């Protein structure tokens, strides 16, 4: 029987398509093998959690709103290499579908179904003036470092 205390915590710093695929693949796989999984989204990683999937002027203040627009949401996450103005993530998704590999959307949905905990970084949200309501409802809590350390204690932690 698997030890129920097994735990994997991933700090999702990158907002890159490929790195998010890696994070959600690990998260789903670990959750399916009975790990407690915590995903802590900070900086660029937070873009994937926005309710608005495209570009939108979110946040407080002109600069923050403009910055949020430039970063965009789930539909705008770039490939870390060979992004080609956003065409490559779409091509990559097409290839993943053709080869029966789970796409980023499916991996996110699966991670949520398996009970993976999604957390958002308090500090980044403060910088951008973004509130919890701007993110998908599955975001369980807005955290700082102390709380993340408490939740990840006793398990493996990765930074992606």
């Amino acid at each position: 029987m698997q030890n129920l205390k097994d735990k994997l915590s991933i700090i999702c710093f990158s907002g890159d398509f490929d790195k998010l695929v890696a994070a959600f693949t690990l998260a789903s796989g670990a959750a399916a093998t009975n790990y407690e999984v915590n995903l802590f989204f900070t900086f660029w990683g937070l873009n994937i959690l926005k309710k608005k999937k495209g570009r939108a002027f979110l946040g407080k203040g002109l600069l923050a709103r403009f910055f949020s627009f430039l970063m965009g949401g789930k539909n705008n996450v770039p490939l870390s290499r060979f992004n080609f103005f956003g065409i490559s993530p779409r091509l990559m998704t097409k290839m993943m579908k053709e080869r029966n590999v789970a796409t980023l959307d499916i991996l996110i949905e699966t991670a949520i179904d398996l009970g993976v905990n999604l957390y958002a970084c308090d500090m980044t949200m403060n910088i951008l003036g973004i509130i919890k309501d701007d993110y998908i409802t599955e975001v369980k809590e807005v955290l700082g470092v102390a709380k993340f350390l408490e939740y990840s204690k006793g398990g493996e932690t990765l930074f992606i």
Partner: protein
Amino acid sequence: MEKNQLDITNEHCPMTFVKVKLALEKIQPKDQLEVLLTEGEPLDNVPKTVKEQGHRVLEITCIKDDIYRILIEKC
């Protein structure tokens, strides 16, 4: 006792054992789940993770070339 079926022959890691886990969550204890899978990663990992989660693997049979059928009882 009910027998359920799941075909993961077209799936890849991690959806192979993810789909088995989700299918097992939907059935009742003592019910059986028949899984069709390919050799390699699915055959290596699915029976292993199922056992780790406390379920019983009753049977592993090769049914055609690299396609296998495993019979799981939910515990």
